[in-house]
């Protein structure tokens, strides 16, 4: 039986405000250390990698948003404003740890080593896309980088992450799972199912909730009535911390400690990062219809990249000159990759039926054969996406492996 908190003769209802969950803050808005805060152990190399990857993602998001507006991509989704929440947390983990993300954590994938070419291959659904052109842009995944392929369905990865972590624990391989999701996803049933199972079954998983103020157009005030998401973690018996998501050092410190706790205590941990989605939900969204410019401006001034830059400059680990050069280089690298990878052909047609099952069963082979016969009659109509590399059309008669 669980332990309850004793008895009382006083009739009093506990209110949500009785539970106080302060926000960990280490760097102030000027990039100075708070006097009461302890600087986490972080070397220059790690700090600069974090900064470079945050900057890379900012540039990537800007370029890809523009590319989508130009019609070169069908869809895009930025993580602008939340770079520190994601890079700071993932930096606390090892490459052996599995990442099970939502869809706004491309910065974690970059931190693991995803290249510009790999980003472009997925965004453009070309023949080198690891997902074989099957999912909309930004649905990344990489077995090599222990980054589970994400899906559009919200919160489904949460109970899965608990199960993955349980398997890691059974395997005894000193690894855990880090699971990202947004505050909106925390309204889904899978959030509650996953947290409860993780806690009851002692799974070494770290849940990182990005509380960014909005779920598409719905503000937090219309998403939940309590004090954010953190109290729910505590309610499920999970060690929980809330951090300033725009403060790279606070997020990093929490990430490092959360991983240690998850492994050492063989149990779940939750981090709620308080931040703001500076961009739109996606390229299909227009925030001007539901929030005002003043609010956006207020948060733009709390830019996590700007804050970290001030700290790095203050430590003389970085210079304005280096910063300028870095951004220039990233812009060129990304645009070059876009130009090169958009010339690549589409994936092979047989990807329509492969991987539905490990081996295509008879009925799928038959449907594929029927489709091939039909396409051969109208190749111009169906295979309209030319093989841009050599000017030919992918053949309908591609055989199955």
């Amino acid at each position, binding site marked *: 039986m669980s332990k309850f908190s004793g008895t009382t003769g006083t009739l009093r209802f506990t209110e949500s405000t009785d539970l106080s969950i302060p926000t960990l803050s280490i760097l102030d808005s000027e990039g100075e250390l708070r006097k009461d805060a302890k600087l986490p152990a972080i070397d220059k190399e790690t700090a600069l990698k974090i900064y470079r990857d945050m900057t890379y993602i900012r540039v990537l998001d800007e370029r890809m948003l523009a590319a989508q507006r130009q019609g070169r991509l069908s869809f895009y989704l930025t993580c602008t404003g939340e770079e520190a929440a994601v890079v700071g947390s993932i930096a606390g983990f090892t490459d052996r740890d599995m990442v099970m993300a939502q869809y706004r954590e491309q910065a974690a994938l970059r931190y693991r080593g995803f290249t510009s070419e790999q980003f472009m291959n997925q965004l453009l659904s070309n023949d080198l896309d690891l997902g*074989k052109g099957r999912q909309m842009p930004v649905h990344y995944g990489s077995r090599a980088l222990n980054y589970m392929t994400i899906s559009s369905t919200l919160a489904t990865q949460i109970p899965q992450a608990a199960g993955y972590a349980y398997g890691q624990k059974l395997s005894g391989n000193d690894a855990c799972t880090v699971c990202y999701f947004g505050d909106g996803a925390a309204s889904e049933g899978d959030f509650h199912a996953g947290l409860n199972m993780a806690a009851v079954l002692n799974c070494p998983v770290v849940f990182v909730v990005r509380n960014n103020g909005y779920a598409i157009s719905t503000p937090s005030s219309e998403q939940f009535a309590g004090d954010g998401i953190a109290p729910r973690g505590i309610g499920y018996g999970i060690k929980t911390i809330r951090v300033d998501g725009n403060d790279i050092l606070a997020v990093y410190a929490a990430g490092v400690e959360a991983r240690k706790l998850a492994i050492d205590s063989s149990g779940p941990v939750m981090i709620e990062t308080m931040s703001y989605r500076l961009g739109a939900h996606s390229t299909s969204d227009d925030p001007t219809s539901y929030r005002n410019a003043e609010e956006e401006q207020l948060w733009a001034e709390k830019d996590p990249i700007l804050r970290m830059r001030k700290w790095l400059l203050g430590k003389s680990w970085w210079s304005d000159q280096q910063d300028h050069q870095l951004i220039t280089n990233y812009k060129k690298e990304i645009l070059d990759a876009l130009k090169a990878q958009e010339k690549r052909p589409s994936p092979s047609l047989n990807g329509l039926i492969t991987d539905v099952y490990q081996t295509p069963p008879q009925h799928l082979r038959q449907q594929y054969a029927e489709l091939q016969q039909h396409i051969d009659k109208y190749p111009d109509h169906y295979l309209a996406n030319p093989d841009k590399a050599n000017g030919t059309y992918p053949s309908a008669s591609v055989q199955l492996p």
Partner: protein
Amino acid sequence: MAQINLLQAVNSALDTAMDTDDRVICLGEDIGKFGGVFRATSDLQDKYGKARCFNTPITEQGIVGFSIGLAAQGSVPVAEIQFADYIFPAFDQIVNEAAKFRYRSGDQFNCGGLTIRAPYGGGISGGLYHSQSPEAYFCHTPGLKVVIPSTAYQAKGLLLAAIRDPDPVIFFEPKAIYRAEVGEVPETDYVLPLGVAEVTSKGSDITLVGWGAQMHQLHRAAKMAAKDGISCEVIDLRTLLPWDVDTVAQSVEKTGRLIISHEAPRTGGFAGEVSATIQECCFLSLEAPILRITGMDTPFPLVFEKEYMPDYLKVYEAIKTSVNF
């Protein structure tokens, strides 16, 4: 060979699976020390430990989501959903996640180790929430396999095959005949192929197709018809997705007549799929319209269960209708 019932055969399959592969994990509501509400997992926790056979909170979406994660990590989870009627909170995890896991990742990740077991079907006075046959919903989902045994021998061989299959499998167990269905089952390890039907009775005049508990109704009807001089060929599909079209088509080309029977409601039921496919490939061999003997398009009743069920008498009448067409 021991004579055991279908439920004991399920337990034997789980025991064999856990014994032969350390990665096999059983989880679900009440399946630990208690051994499950039907006792399908009896003694497994004692034998293999709490880490590999354990209770979960009451959350079907959690059980299936957790199991998908386990499978993706490399374990071989066998999740129990206490009744098939309660599988629907997990519908999203099954249909959008498990079924598409390999495909959407370009085969970088898969949850093929996953098996979901659920007792299904009527005949136990269970009313609308302990009697349903939801197989058709899952047969409409590419990426899943759907398997239903009708005998103890099948239950062990098919469940072992399901657990070892590289794709996620939903394994529905006909709970009405859990204890009534007794047969010889080897104590040794064996598998029966998925996607292959079994001709359980040879005949020449009409083909009867079914699965699960319905097989007993079909055989009983076939015996009645035999007294009228009608020879029925009875086929147990065993796997509904992917189903064995060739075995059914070959039979119908011979008999020219087909009846498909299931407990689930008729509209959108799997008999419709079998019927449509067979008329496409056997049109010129058909001597009569293909008939469906199914549950009604109503919720599953309580007091009128006997009237609702597609029993042997309804099948027998359909046989005569078809033969006399």
